[in-house]
């Protein structure tokens, strides 16, 4: 799922060098330039093909009839929306989709809000143990998640968080925080300190200075962090499969694994592919919506330069 979005974002910046190479080629008209242009175009095509083929394969698979799912052809012989109808009619997928959206959004929002506060403190204040905190938070991110599944399972059972939304939101948030803090603190560090001082002199409280000046300027960073964290939560499988058991908290990746086949010995490839395509859509919409905001350069004009 994330393969598709990764392909989309990597191909976007690749376009630029090609264009500059073209204009340069026109200006000088040398063979060297034409060669470079061909080289860049080739690389671009290669990257696009590599990242799009798996996506296309999944899309085509989802459009095949169950009988022809494993026929070995790339393009379906019989086009059908049967699989999509199937997953939306079975309650398990729609409920999982609802869980996925709710859990991922809440966990991401909490993580980003907490990370904003922490990153701002790390970027602005000089306190003892600042580096240590950053190092520890990164260490948390390196911790293999699978090793925590067992203890968490037992703990959640004991305190009644097993198979609930908070039961997934808490670990998602925890594992998303280190990365968020790291990304956001580097964004906050880029914002000239004078802006905040100017706001203070203008009569702003530290909270007002943050919400009215710093946060709007760090918006590209906040949005970027939000999307990264959302994708991590959205795609998680390990926690989702281990800490849930019913549709009350099961997210899409876990639900897909539980799709019932026609018999015990058939894998419902078509349904799985259709579900995979559907869950990719929200991520793609998010990225497309905020693509412009992610572009940095909002701070241009703040200070002379």
């Amino acid at each position, binding site marked *: 799922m994330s393969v598709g979005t990764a392909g989309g974002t990597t191909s976007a910046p690749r376009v630029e060098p090609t264009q500059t190479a073209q204009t340069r080629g026109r200006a000088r008209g040398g063979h060297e330039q034409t060669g470079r242009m061909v080289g860049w175009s080739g690389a671009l095509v290669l990257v696009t093909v590599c990242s799009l083929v798996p996506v296309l394969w999944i899309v085509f698979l989802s459009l095949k009839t169950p009988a022809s799912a494993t026929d070995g052809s790339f393009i379906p012989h019989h086009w059908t929306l049967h699989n999509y109808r199937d997953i939306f009619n079975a309650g398990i997928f729609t409920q999982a989709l609802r869980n996925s959206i709710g859990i991922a959004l809440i966990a991401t929002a909490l993580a980003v809000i907490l990370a904003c506060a922490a990153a701002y403190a790390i970027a602005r204040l000089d306190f003892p143990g600042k580096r240590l905190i950053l190092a520890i938070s990164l260490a948390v991110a390196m911790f293999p998640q699978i090793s925590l599944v067992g203890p968490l399972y037992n703990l959640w059972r004991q305190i009644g968080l097993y198979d609930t939304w908070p039961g997934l939101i808490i670990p998602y948030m925890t594992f998303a925080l280190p990365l968020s803090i790291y990304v956001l603190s580097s964004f906050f560090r880029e914002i*000239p300190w*004078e*802006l905040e*001082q*100017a*706001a*203070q*002199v*203008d*009569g*702003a*409280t530290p909270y*007002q200075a943050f919400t*009215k*000046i710093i946060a*709007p*300027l760090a918006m590209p960073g906040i949005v970027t962090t939000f999307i990264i964290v959302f994708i991590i939560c959205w795609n998680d499988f390990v926690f989702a499969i281990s800490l849930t058991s019913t549709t009350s908290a099961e997210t899409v990746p876990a639900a897909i694994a539980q799709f019932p086949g026609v018999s015990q010995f058939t894998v419902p490839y078509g349904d799985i592919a259709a579900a995979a395509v559907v869950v990719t859509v929200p991520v793609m919409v998010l990225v497309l919506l905020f693509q412009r905001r992610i572009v940095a350069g*909002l*701070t*241009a*004009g*703040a*200070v*002379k*330069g």
Partner: protein
Amino acid sequence: MSTIALEHIYKRYPDGFEAVKDMNLEIGDGEFMILVGPSGCGKSTALRMVAGLEDISDGELKIGGEVVNQRAPKDRDIAMVFQNYALYPHMTVRDNMGFALKLAKVPDAEINSKVTEAARILDLEQHLDRKPANLSGGQRQRVAMGRAIVRNPKAFLMDEPLSNLDAKLRVQMRTEISRIQQQLGTTTIYVTHDQTEAMTLGDRIAVMRAGLLQQVGTPAELYGHPNNLFVAGFIGSPSMNFLPGELSGDTLRLPIGDVRIPERLRGRLGRGPGGGRGGVIAGIRPEHFEDAALVGDRSRGHTFRAKIDVLESMGSEYYAYFVVEAERVSSSELEELAADAGGADLPRAQGNQVVARLDAASRVRQGEEAELWFNAERLQLFDPEGGQSLLPADGNGAASGAAQPAGTGGAAAGTAADTGGTAADT
């Protein structure tokens, strides 16, 4: 509008470095005070302490008679113009200027009228709905000014507001700032390292060096009666020439000849710390030299001959450079001035290089020997040890200067003893 008083202010950093030492400065209501000095002298730190952006290590800061040491910047009712403007890039010019009022919960209609008024004063009306990124440097600077003036604060604090502009614009904005300040009558502290800005803008100037206040006074006082070598060398452009000298009785023995000390200086010299004997450093400003041929009455000065190495024509005047063979004048203060001007790395000429400003009517030629004259009444004498002036300001000169408004500064010194002959000194 308000008075600002710094009483025994110190700034100490955790590593023990003292950026500002025992600073005492009183700024009157509506006064335009300049803090000037080479980079790293503590002037910006002092300003930021007044703004509340730096903690005060020791001493008391009073704004309008109230001690504000512990108050946050927002509770001090001051406006600041930053060196790099610090405009909010995500807001339009209008929102930038109205931000402080909005935070103060001023009604929208009032914000609008105040912003429009400020925009009119600053000629920004057609740019109100643009973002800072789309403005030129000069326009951004004016927005930063506008952000300060809409507030009608107790004081303006300006931290080198013109240093990012190109030379021509800087001169324009300088007059603009002066005009606005007079119009509004707001107490202003202005930090700069540019002595020209300091001389032209300020009601009074406070010269700082290495965290210590060197001298506070009107431009005329600083020009006419510098307290020490540092102030003497810092104020004035081109800067004062320094020559080693020897005092004996009424005569000052200089490498360019023996000079009879005029009556007026002798009285002040007697009251000075040196008592009127021994080795001194003599300071002569370039503008107090003249082509001897153009001087009518040479009796008040000293005539000598020198070979002109370089002659620069400014159109309105000449700058003549010549070398006086003598032991180099050296003092830590002068070294620092040279370093600040970026001259520390230049190859040193043998002896002391002297620059003289001559009238455009002069017939002096480059590479030829010329007869020059300087006005002995405008001599400055300094103790070679501590750099202190040996000529304490005489009563009427310094005292009358204190009440003078800005603008009378420049070259005309307090008790104007004009040069003889042509008006080289205006």
